[in-house]
């Protein structure tokens, strides 16, 4: 089933590319319809997922490049489950708002579906080389989406995006090769292997762990992006078309945090434990820096882009807290951020389609002509700030609760990020949607159309669902998260601080939310 899930978007891309280019009215609806298929499959996967199981489920393995031990191996666990579901949800919605793509529409839809295959594949791959292939192949459609359908400085932004990530993944490839060769030298038959599960059994010296951790972490830190590797992000976000921004923030950035969680923590536990201070400090710097820079942005899209730097800092902090609650918070915050920031980018895109500007100073008082839009924006802004009852609260609260026992000082600093988030989000809302309504264009601004409402409503519903009943995701992620911590505790002398493990904190945390 997972293979089908990965390949249906690709199949969809083939179908769309067969439709003649002059039938332009067909491409977008067809692409949307085709992206519902993977959504259905992802839903089936989500609900047939066995919540009590820590190891990978629905594993499929086919030998691919035999001489090098590369296999087409897919599997899902609690860490990847939410991400796959999020990806499948965001694609039909992003395609739905892409009416403003006026030229080369067919190519756009094909690129989008190709991107979906790559993203789902990255989250499901259990073979490191297969992971790398997906991880790298994603760059091409994303590069095209920014570079062909983006704003004025699109080519600059696209090239910058590509170069940054390509450099990161170059060293990642070297590290993956090192692991495969290590496998060959540590097994009696001397065969190369890229199988994640096989590589987990390797005995890696502490020095080698440091180097390999560094190579993996650099690739993922650029993707996240972790301060100071974030400079590609504002350019890419601002220039990308709405669908591109939604997917960039919603899913692509999560490849970084997913990679840290999936590979760095489990493959290099010793290095993880000794490098916690570095990563955690960078995460907190990112939280504060991203938030402060977001406050002063005159451009609404850039504001949301910098808020991503801040929010993903929370995710990284949660990961390197190395406690159940922290990791749980990181996993769920990964999904949350995709929903809320995705929705905020959609809203910014809708504003831009109407007014062809993203400057906050050009707006004002829009709540009067467009109450529905204002309502959605405020709702998503609250979710992003972490208002109790909405999903952002669950994630950020778990991260803070989880990291306090292990990193109390940093947690205190990070908590200010929540305050700063309230400042930049609410201030932006105030300047755009309240205040005096000036200018003819603002006055006759159209409110959300039925279609736009239909795009935003499911996201809002999920935000509320995850805010009120986070257990639907948390119970599925818990065993996998525990397994990661068990692994770290077995391989190092690290012990999660009290209250650090699930039994100590998770129950109390979920009671607090309700």
């Amino acid at each position, binding site marked *: 089933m997972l293979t089908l899930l990965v390949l249906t978007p690709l199949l969809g891309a083939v179908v769309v590319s067969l439709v003649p280019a002059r039938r332009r009215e067909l491409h977008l609806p067809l692409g949307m319809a085709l992206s519902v298929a993977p959504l259905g499959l992802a839903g089936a996967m989500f609900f047939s997922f066995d919540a009590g199981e820590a190891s990978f489920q629905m594993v499929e393995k086919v030998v*691919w*490049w*035999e*001489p*090098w031990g590369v296999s087409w191996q897919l599997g899902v666990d609690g860490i990847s489950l939410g991400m796959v579901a999020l990806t499948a949800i965001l694609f039909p919605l992003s395609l739905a708002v892409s009416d403003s793509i006026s030229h080369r529409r067919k190519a756009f839809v094909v690129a989008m579906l190709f991107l979906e295959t790559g993203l789902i594949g990255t989250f499901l791959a259990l073979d490191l*080389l297969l992971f*790398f*292939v*997906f991880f*790298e*192949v994603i760059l*091409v459609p994303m*590069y*095209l989406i920014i*570079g*062909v359908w983006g704003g004025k400085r*699109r*080519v600059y932004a*696209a*090239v910058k995006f*590509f*170069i940054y990530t*390509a*450099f990161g*993944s*170059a*060293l990642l*490839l*070297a590290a993956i*090769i*090192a692991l*495969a*060769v290590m496998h*060959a030298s540590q097994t009696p038959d001397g065969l*190369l292997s890229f199988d994640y599960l096989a590589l987990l059994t390797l005995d890696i010296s502490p020095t080698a762990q440091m180097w390999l951790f560094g190579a993996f972490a650099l690739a993922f830190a650029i993707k996240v992006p972790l301060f100071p590797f974030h400079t590609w992000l504002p350019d890419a976000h601002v220039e990308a078309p709405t669908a591109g921004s939604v997917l960039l923030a919603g899913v692509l950035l999560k490849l970084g945090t997913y990679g840290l969680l999936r590979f760095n923590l489990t493959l290099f536990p010793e290095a993880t434990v000794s490098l916690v201070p570095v990563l955690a400090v960078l995460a907190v710097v990112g939280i504060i820096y991203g938030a402060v820079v977001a406050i002063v942005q005159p451009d609404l899209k850039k504001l949301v882009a910098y808020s991503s730097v801040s929010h993903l800092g929370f995710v990284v902090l949660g990961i390197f807290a190395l406690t159940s609650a922290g990791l749980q918070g990181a996993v769920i915050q990964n999904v949350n951020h995709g929903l809320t920031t995705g929705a905020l980018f959609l809203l910014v895109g809708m504003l831009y389609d109407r007014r062809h500007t993203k400057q906050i100073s050009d707006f004002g008082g829009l709540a009067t002509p467009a109450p529905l839009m204002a309502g959605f924006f405020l709702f998503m802004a609250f979710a992003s700030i972490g208002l109790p009852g909405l999903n952002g609260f669950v994630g950020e609260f778990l991260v803070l609760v989880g990291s306090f026992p292990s990193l109390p000082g940093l947690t205190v600093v990070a908590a200010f990020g929540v305050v700063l988030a309230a400042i930049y989000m609410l201030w932006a809302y105030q300047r755009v949607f309240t205040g005096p309504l000036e200018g003819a264009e603002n006055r006759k601004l159209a409110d959300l159309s039925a279609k736009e409402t239909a795009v935003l409503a499911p996201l809002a519903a999920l935000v509320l669902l995850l805010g009120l009943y986070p257990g639907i995701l948390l119970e599925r992620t818990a065993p996998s998260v525990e397994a990661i911590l068990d692994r770290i505790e077995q391989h190092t002398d690290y012990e999660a601080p009290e209250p650090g493990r699930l039994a100590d904190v998770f129950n109390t945390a979920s009671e607090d939310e309700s």
Partner: protein
Amino acid sequence: MIPEAFPEIAWSALAPELVLVFGAVALLLLDVQRKPGVKVLWGTSLVILAIALALGVWQWIAATPDAEPIFGGMLIFDRSAALARLVVLGVSLQAMVAARSLFAHLGNRAAEGLALVLLAAAGFILMAASQNLVMMFLGLEMGSIALYILAGIAGDGVRSDEAALKYLLLGAVASAVFIYGAALVFAGTGSLDLLRVAGFFARNLVLSPAVLLVGIGLLTAGLSFKVAAAPFHVWAPDVYQGAPAGIVGYMAAVAKVGGFAALARVLLSGFESFRPDWAPIVAGIAALSMVVGALMAIISSDIRRLLAYSGVAHAGFILTGLASGAQGSSSVWFYLAVYTVQLVAAFSVVSALGGAVSSGSDLSDYRGLYRRSPFLALVLSVSLLGMAGLPLTTGFVAKLGVFLWAWRGDLEWLVVVAVVASAMAIYLYLRVIVIMYMQSPADDDPVLCDRPTSWALGAATAVTVVLGVFPQPLLKLVESAVYL
């Protein structure tokens, strides 16, 4: 084993080369006797190449890993030589199918040009199969001299003449360096036969190997020139830029196959026991080539110079595989097989766009190629992405193979240099793709290419992608071509 009588010759082992050489002669005679049209001559040369390729496939099936030397130890058609033959013939066919317009332009020189192409292919195959350094030199010269003439065959332009002359002069120096190296090897071991050289080292302890080391160094330098590895690459951009567009891809591809096959045989078969001595040198050349090639390509404003410098970088990647020892030679073969296909395809596009006898192809001519010819833009993009080593193209598998073996061969530092260089290289290929897809064309005239060219380009693109996703067959093939 000096033969007392005339040695028994396994002519059948040489069948493809005999077809090429006699075919070349037949083409010239046909031209003199009948004065047929260019189409007939071109078609005949394709048939000759196809027959040679078919015989090559037959020989591949027949060849065994423990093949016996033939011609009194001059040639050996083991798996690696048989594979080199397949690659040379395959890319020759690919290049010639796309080169009809070049020979149409050459007019009454077409037969000579076609004959030279066939002879060059035969020469480089013989070079790859040489077990004796003198035979290797003969193959090298047979191929190179044909290429010197081909570089200037259009004969209408200062650039073309300059290219031919430069290639000739520097090529002659490189040949001289090579033959000097061969002489020193003879002085040190008393033999030019690489198997006997290897046997000499097995039986004798060489206490002062200075002469031999210089000899190995000179052989490596001479062959590095042929494959355009830095710092022996300076001729490549000028020659690629000046020679007729329709033939550059062919020239570059066959010279690289011949050169690397010879280098692999010299280093891995003859001087394997000296690997600790030559590996650092080869690794150094590799690192230098990758970095210099990528950097110089980035600042090139002519696509041919760009491809020439990127070829320097690719030579570095291939040398990386070579430096990792005999096991790594499988990755060298894979790389050569897939890179030459991309290279020839890229130059076929250059030729289709700029004219088959043109010199120089400024990058600005490629602005908005997407609109003028979606097909050519796609082919060039796939070839460039393949060269960039993007996953799902053969280029990725090739690079991965080289890196894997180099890491296993304890050349970790070289792999790190290589991955960084390949990340830099991505930028330069991307630059061309940006120009083709994201800039507006100067004019909207559609670019047309003849039908055979589009077949050759389509096939090359399909090979690059399909073998990039399912490289298994080719991986198995090259694994059997390892020097053991």
